[in-house]
């Protein structure tokens, strides 16, 4: 019973923080709300018995990606005064378009057929032992290719960040 209430509470927090990311005036506040949203999503992972993924999520998103965002915002000296805004008419149409997308997605989900759950629930699939076995047996090639992707991204970021490209 407490799990259900925790789910509702965490879902409410996630949606509220995500909305505050979009609607807050200052970019620094947006980043801080995004960190909070990521922590609530990590809480969802814990509730779903994906403990290792929750730890990795906190380390990668709250630890690495958000620091990068905050660093760039501080470097570009963005604040409330320099923030560009769309015209009220464009903002209104953006809200209408997103609302229509939500209606279409929820409507399509309503007509979807049910998937049967696995009849014997296994609480241990989120543990590092089972995840490692799957990762290194079924997904070994994608794992190695993703290391090349990260190397290429690193080289690209360094090259783009250089002062002058001649």
């Amino acid at each position, binding site marked *: 019973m407490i799990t259900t209430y925790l789910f509702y509470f965490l879902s409410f927090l996630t949606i509220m923080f995500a909305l505050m990311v979009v609607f807050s005036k200052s970019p620094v506040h947006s980043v801080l709300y995004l960190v909070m949203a990521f922590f609530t999503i990590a809480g969802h992972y814990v509730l779903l018995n994906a403990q290792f993924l929750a730890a990795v999520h906190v380390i990668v998103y709250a630890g690495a990606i958000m620091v990068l965002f905050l660093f*760039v915002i501080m470097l570009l000296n963005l604040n409330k005064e320099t923030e560009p805004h769309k015209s009220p008419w464009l903002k209104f149409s953006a809200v209408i378009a997103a609302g229509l997308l939500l209606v279409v997605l929820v409507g399509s989900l309503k007509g979807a057929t049910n998937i049967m*759950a696995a009849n014997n629930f296994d609480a241990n699939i989120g543990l590092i032992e089972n995840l490692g076995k799957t990762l290194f047996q079924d997904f070994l090639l994608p794992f190695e290719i993703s290391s090349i992707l990260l190397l290429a991204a690193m080289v690209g*970021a360094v090259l783009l960040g250089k002062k002058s490209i001649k």
Partner: protein
Amino acid sequence: MSAIQVVPIEWYLLLCTVLFTIGVLGVLFRRNAIIIFMSIEIMLNAVNLLLVAFSSYLSDSKGQVFVFFIMAVAAAEVAVGLAILMMVYRNTKSSDIDMLNKLKW
């Protein structure tokens, strides 16, 4: 006890749909390129959460491995994207994406 045993999968579908729509709303609503990047992160996380929910629902760890790969791709995307943003800022002195309309028809 896992949440998937007491919460119906439809609630997770609804939550992730709402989160994804908030990401789309952020991309349409704001002009600051960094906020648009954050909205893309929200969309990626909505998909990640749904993958974990279904992986738990079907007791199959392949979904959680996919979330790992999405995280790696997201990290690479953010590094390159923020470097591009820095370069745009250096050339236009602004993070407003409406300045970059040379390719607009």
